[in-house]
């Protein structure tokens, strides 16, 4: 047994989670609004959930606080994870139920989650991830626990239980538009990443193989990355507008100073760096001795590719594509500014109309999309990484 200092058992993360969870009892859970632009009236948890729910949340806060002094053994970890999950589910359900009751019978009324709710969600995240982080569990369990809250929200949404929430209402009033903008968003980021991969991988390989090309290639792709995205989108407008004016062919193809074409070009340029850098690295990590050994055992050029270069390089290249994709999903939101569409449209509309709920409605699917794509690609990359290279820095 390792001797432990008594104070060493205090788990600061859990204590932070408990303190944050406590905030839900002290700050409003949501704000009630009679209509879209009305000022909200704060509603506290006891008012929204009643004595039982308030008591339950208080109990969870207390339990988390006590557990932060318990040694980090597995059972304690799972207890904390459960507390975090319960807190989340309780808050979301209370929000939905109380929201529906509050707005019942009022056509334009809605609720907006406030500080108490958001801090509670944060507390739940801290409690769950803080313990899951060090728990000896498989990646599958990790993913399931990580995805559970999203699943809960989706089920509640599908069941109409969160309909009183303002962002949901904003969604209902623009359902068709939402679907088309989501499609545009996916199309724009997808096409940009595809274009960036198709050009970036050969560029990275070129930069590695030809010393002459290395500096210029990286100077350019690094340079692009330093331009603020808004400026880059702006930069596209003038030359494309000019080209479109001079060459009617281009105009008939839909290429103008604003819209899809400049957005796609800018997004592609942005997506280049991670792809180029990783394609370069994927070859650089293959040690000279390994290539030499491949030659020495009598591999042909094609066999070298198949047995050595591809297995080592592909997962690293895909990691670049993954970073690039997540970035592109975020950058595409900005592309709405030059009329390219996408989920950013709602964000900027919301900002323009002073309707934060509309902003939230635009932002949340962007975040979910990023997380989803990031996680899925991570799984694919893990599956493709040869076992001998796992855990190695890449």
């Amino acid at each position, binding site marked *: 047994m390792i001797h432990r200092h008594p104070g060493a058992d205090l788990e600061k993360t859990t204590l932070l989670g408990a303190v944050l969870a406590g905030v839900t009892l002290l700050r409003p859970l949501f704000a009630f609004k009679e209509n879209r632009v009305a000022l909200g009236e704060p509603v506290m948890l006891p008012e929204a959930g009643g004595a039982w729910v308030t008591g339950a949340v208080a109990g969870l806060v207390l339990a988390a606080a006590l557990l932060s002094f318990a040694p980090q053994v597995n059972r304690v970890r799972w207890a904390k994870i459960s507390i975090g999950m319960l807190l989340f589910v309780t808050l979301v359900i209370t929000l939905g139920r109380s929201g529906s009751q509050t707005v019942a019978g009022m056509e334009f009324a809605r609720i907006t989650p406030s500080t108490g709710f958001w801090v509670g969600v944060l507390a739940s995240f801290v409690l769950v991830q803080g313990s899951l982080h060090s728990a000896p569990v498989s990646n599958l369990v990790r993913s399931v626990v990580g995805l559970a809250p999203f699943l809960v929200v989706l089920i509640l949404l599908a069941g109409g239980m969160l309909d009183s929430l303002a962002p949901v209402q904003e969604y209902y009033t623009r359902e068709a538009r939402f679907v088309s903008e989501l499609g545009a968003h996916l199309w724009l980021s997808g096409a940009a990443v595809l274009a960036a991969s198709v050009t970036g991988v050969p560029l990275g390989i070129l930069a590695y193989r030809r010393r002459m090309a290395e500096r210029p290639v990286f100077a350019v792709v690094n340079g692009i990355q330093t331009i603020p995205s808004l400026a880059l989108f702006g930069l596209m407008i003038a030359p494309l507008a000019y080209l479109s004016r001079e060459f009617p062919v281009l105009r008939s193809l839909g290429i103008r100073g604003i819209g899809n074409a400049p957005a796609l070009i800018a997004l592609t340029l942005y997506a280049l760096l991670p792809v180029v850098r990783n394609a370069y690295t994927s070859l650089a990590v293959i*040690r000279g*001795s*390994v290539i*030499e*050994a*491949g*030659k*020495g*055992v*009598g*591999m*042909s050029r094609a*066999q070298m590719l198949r*047995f*050595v270069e591809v*297995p*080592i390089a592909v997962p690293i290249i895909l990691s670049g594509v993954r970073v690039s994709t997540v970035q592109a999903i975020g950058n595409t939101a900005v592309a709405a500014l030059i009329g390219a569409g996408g989920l950013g449209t709602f964000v900027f509309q919301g900002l323009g109309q002073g309707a934060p709920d509309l902003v939230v409605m635009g932002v949340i699917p962007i975040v979910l999309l990023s997380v989803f794509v990031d996680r899925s690609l991570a799984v694919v990359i893990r599956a493709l990484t*040869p*076992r*001998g*290279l796992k855990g*190695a820095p890449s």
Partner: protein
Amino acid sequence: MIEFRNVVKRYRGQMAVDGISFSIAEAEVCVLIGPSGCGKTTTLKLINRMLEPSSGEVLLDGHPVASFEPEELRRGIGYVIQSVGLFPHMSVAENVGIVPRLMKWERSRREKRTDELLELIGLDPAQYRRKYPSELSGGEAQRVGVARALAADPPVLLMDEPFGAVDPLNREILQLEFAALQRKLRKTVVFVTHDLDEAIRLGDHVVIMREGRILQHDQPAEVLASPANEFVRQFVGVDRALKRLACFEVGDYMKRAETITREESFGRRNEPNGDGGEHPILWVTNRDQALVGMLEPELNPGSRLVYRPYVALHPDEVGVRPAASLREALSRILGQGLRAAPVISDEGRVLGEVRLSDIEELNQTGIAR
């Protein structure tokens, strides 16, 4: 088996190998040695066409290597590269089985061969087959590198500083293992090193190189006994007499030993000195002929031969095996302060003895020439 004919290799005007000619016989270990940058690696790579000569030719079994397809040639020549170069993404079994895989052997045959080779290099297949290079120690990785080179049972093995990256203790173990393996496999081996002790220990012939040229090509004992020029003399060092002893086996210089039993030893304290000449150490053995002690004669005997009191001995501390080198025997003799060391079998039986006087004589004749 391998012949270099006036081979030159230039890199953009820089001379790496400057017109070398020599040949290597079948089943011998030829060690290329010399300071860093003298062209050892280049010479080696000219054999399997990793490099092409600027002029001259290399023959393998009488055929110019240039007449073979490079890939075919390389699959038929085992190559252990300077920095191990195991494929990091392949398991030990996949690394070892790569040449059979390139040669399209069936999986079952490949797996059988892989296990066989792991056994051969002393790694338990069940335990090591599925490991990855990052999980191996330096010595294990080197062994796997050797196994990979041996996979398709090539007649020729090229080894470029194969034990260069391991610590001295493990290097010695690997050298001994390699020597034992070579006695079994009898490959034609071209072995590059810059470690003279390694060259002496392993080489049937040693090729000393400098600046792309061969300074001396000889048996190790000859190189040490009569260095071809001042450079070689300095290269082999001032203690070459001592190093040279590593070339000789105890078994070849063993003399008959006098043994008596413990019971017989009781009376032998003091007896007439018949001829007045040198008297040998009496090695005392037990019933199983195993060494248990000795009676040592006084060094300045008068008219009577006087033995010192019985001294108990431990065979592993004083004895040497027949396969050991005279260098080891000498260190035993000097360490014990005796005139001879007993040669013992694995069971501890006394087979004979090696005498200090014989070792000294050997060195004098050797160096004088």
